[in-house]
């Protein structure tokens, strides 16, 4: 435990976490500091491309095996199942409607790629290796949770909501959303071009990565802080508790899956992180179309305002520390 806390404490003083805090504080202090939308998108494109490419190169080097398939299946299963746990917890801890609870549950079954990227940067900062294919697992975990959530809504009868607006077109949008395509595409390119490809673009992909992540987390802090400011009073204590407990539940499930798969400590930490993280890009957009009556302020504030900072500051360092102990 002390060991975990020490490692976690060290992690708080990295430029990345401090940049997130700076953004949070600036937003809460109502500074007008903003990151232009195009710059934020550019940085996320860069991060997705870099992380996907690195994963692909690492698979090209270490080979492609049955464990990759098993990890993908485990990820998909987690994404399908976690929404049920989240839904049950929300119904117990909060007075949320079934519709809102299902929408929130979809976010917690899915994943946050920035949380994942931050975890890889913590690992690399500590010199811990991980399985390159974990980025493919991340991509595979984005969408299944949406199915579970819609099933939960359909079963609950949904009270005030009209029919669910789920069609082939929305599936197409979800499965081919920008980040999945970029992540998987870069992964494949990395896998195909391997080490020679990496040699050509290494000084673009590797060197500036952590610095870009700093500025990106600054923006995330700004956005999260503005969201929290706007959403004051929207989340009761039960919802706040959920926002902290659910990632712990997710991480535990991820740890179980990772141990069963026999992942390395680094891979284990990433699997915990994925399961513990909550989506705030792909799933919200899908929910706006499929369940427009669900309140976005609830799911965005929980996911980005509570769980994301929790994972960044406390979660990831703990998951890494735990993974080293139990996976070591």
């Amino acid at each position, binding site marked *: 435990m002390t060991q975990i806390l020490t490692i976690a404490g060290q992690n708080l003083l990295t430029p990345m976490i401090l940049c997130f805090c700076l953004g949070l504080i600036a937003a809460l202090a109502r500074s007008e500091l903003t990151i232009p939308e195009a710059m934020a998108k550019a940085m996320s494109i860069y991060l997705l491309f870099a992380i996907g490419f690195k994963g692909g190169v690492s698979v090209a080097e270490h080979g492609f095996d049955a464990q990759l398939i098993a990890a993908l299946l485990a990820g998909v299963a987690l994404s399908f199942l976690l929404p049920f746990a989240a839904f049950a917890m929300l119904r117990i801890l909060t007075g949320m409607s079934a519709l809102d609870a299902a929408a929130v549950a979809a976010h917690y079954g899915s994943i946050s790629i920035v949380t994942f990227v931050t975890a890889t940067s913590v690992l690399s900062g500590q010199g811990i290796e991980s399985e390159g294919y974990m980025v493919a697992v991340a991509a595979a975990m984005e969408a299944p949770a949406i199915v579970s959530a819609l099933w939960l809504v359909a079963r609950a009868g949904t009270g005030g909501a009209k029919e669910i607006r789920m069609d082939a077109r929305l599936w197409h949008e979800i499965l081919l959303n920008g980040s999945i395509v970029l992540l998987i595409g870069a992964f494949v390119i990395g896998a195909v071009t391997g080490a020679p490809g990496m040699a050509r673009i290494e000084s673009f992909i590797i060197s500036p990565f952590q610095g870009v992540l700093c500025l990106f987390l600054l923006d995330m802090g700004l956005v999260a802080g503005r969201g929290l400011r706007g959403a004051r009073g929207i989340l009761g204590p039960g919802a706040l508790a959920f926002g902290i407990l659910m990632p712990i539940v997710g991480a535990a499930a991820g740890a179980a899956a990772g141990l069963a798969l026999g992942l390395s400590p680094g891979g284990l930490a990433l699997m915990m992180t994925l399961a513990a993280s909550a989506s705030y890009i792909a799933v919200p957009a899908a929910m706006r*179309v499929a369940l427009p009556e669900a309140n976005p302020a609830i799911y965005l504030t929980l996911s980005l305002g509570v769980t994301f900072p929790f994972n960044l500051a406390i979660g990831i360092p703990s998951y890494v520390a735990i993974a080293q102990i139990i996976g070591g």
Partner: protein
Amino acid sequence: MQTHAAKRVEIIIEAPMESRLTEALEKTGVTGFTVLPVLGGSGRSGRWTREGQIGRAGMVSVICLIRPERLDALLEAAFAVVERHIGVVSVTDTHVLRAERF
């Protein structure tokens, strides 16, 4: 110059619904429209700005200039899309040059 009476319909809608809206318009035969970016706004669902947005989809403003007689079909189509969503629809009388284009 010669101008012709027309309607200017302005639909402010969530960006994820844009393509559904424009397809609905096209289905009713409305093939002319222009999409403008929106920086932020306020309504019953509160204030927002594009830069404080997660994913930053935000909203867009879709403007259609149409002949008056096609207004009803357009509104029906638009309404079916926006009905359950946040956003607003307004219709203004206007005049256009080059009526043969509409």
